[in-house]
């Protein structure tokens, strides 16, 4: 079953989440929605993030590819300019750096789209969000429904049957 509740502020949501967690709910089963940044204490709703990994991998990948490409082109059509060597790390290092950074950006954006689930949108999100409300969705087995309701209401949540989900 999916329990939907509204809270008036971030503090009570935090308390509710903590209470739910001690009751055995995993962060995977909880989702919060708000028109303002969701700021609860670090670790309460810990979701593992691989964003920095994506960024680093993107950076290294792009940088290596770019450097390899430049070396290939310089040897493929070798033209002596200014008596300088054909391939030179110093001369092409700038481009390596720039494209490494571009790779980091690409990695970050991909990670953002992936971890924010931009293309796997939740069907439970409220259509119209009010300013001062935080929306909580908990998914649990039917057997735990009563207990979950109690925990949520004890921490200041207002159970709502349906808040008009997004199509």
């Amino acid at each position, binding site marked *: 079953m999916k329990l939907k509740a509204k809270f008036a502020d971030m503090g009570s949501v935090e308390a509710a989440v903590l209470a739910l967690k001690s009751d055995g709910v995993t962060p995977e089963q909880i989702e919060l929605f708000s028109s303002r940044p969701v700021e609860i204490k670090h670790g309460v709703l810990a979701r593992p993030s691989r964003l920095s990994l994506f960024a680093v991998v993107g950076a290294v990948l792009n940088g290596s590819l770019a450097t390899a490409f430049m070396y290939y082109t310089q040897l493929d059509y*070798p*033209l*002596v*300019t*200014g*008596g*300088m*060597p054909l391939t030179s790390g110093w001369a092409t290092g700038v481009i390596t750096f720039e494209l490494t950074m571009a790779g980091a950006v690409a990695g970050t954006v991909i990670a953002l789209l992936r971890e924010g689930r931009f293309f796997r949108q939740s069907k439970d999100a409220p259509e119209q969000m009010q300013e001062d409300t935080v929306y909580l969705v908990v998914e649990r087995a039917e057997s735990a429904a009563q207990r979950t309701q109690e925990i949520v209401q004890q921490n200041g949540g207002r159970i709502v049957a349906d808040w008009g989900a997004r199509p």
Partner: protein
Amino acid sequence: MATETAKANETTTGEAHTARWGMAIDLDRCTGCEACVLACHAENNIPLSDEASSAMGRANHWIRIDRYYEGEFPNIKVKYRPVLCQQCDDAPCEPVCPVYATYQNAEGLNVQVYNRCVGTRYCANNCPYTVRFFNWFDPVWPEPLELQLNPDVSIRPGGVMEKCTFCIQRIQRGQRDAKHEDRALADGDIQPACVQSCPAEAMVFGDLTDSESKVSQWAESGRAGQLLPELGTRPRVFYLERAK
């Protein structure tokens, strides 16, 4: 130092040169008559440098006579120096071209490929001798001047950089003729237009890898020096003048 430059037979990538073209100009013989300038214009289809373009600093003279005046009247000395592309071994103009429109070929010439040039003009800014010229417009030759254009030399469109090529068309013709006639190239067979036209015989042109050539001998003369050698461009044009 002049002899070092003349004798170096390898590029920095270690390939041997098949020939290394160089030029020597005897400043003590040069009278500043500018016959070389005219010959170059005729030979290389250089766009007209009329009054308007000259006033704007856009006159195109692949070889030019720089005049410097020294002293006060009546003890004035005038120094003439024909300045042309020095065909540097370490040319600063080459690495900055984004499209490889200028590079050094196997014979050590600093070639300019007109087709590739997109006109960034970075090469011209980096040349310490200011020997590069730009085609600001498509060239126009009023009648009947278009009849005297040299068919061996292409006409550059507007937006393209150009400079002295050591008359590469004459070098290629000389090498082709020698091959057809099954003989080796002799020193003096190939002469750029400027060298050919100098009435004072102040210029010589030849192969620097040939130690017997006139240009190699002039280059090793005690009077030989180079223009702005301290910049490290390793030019292949030698200027001979009496020490001051």
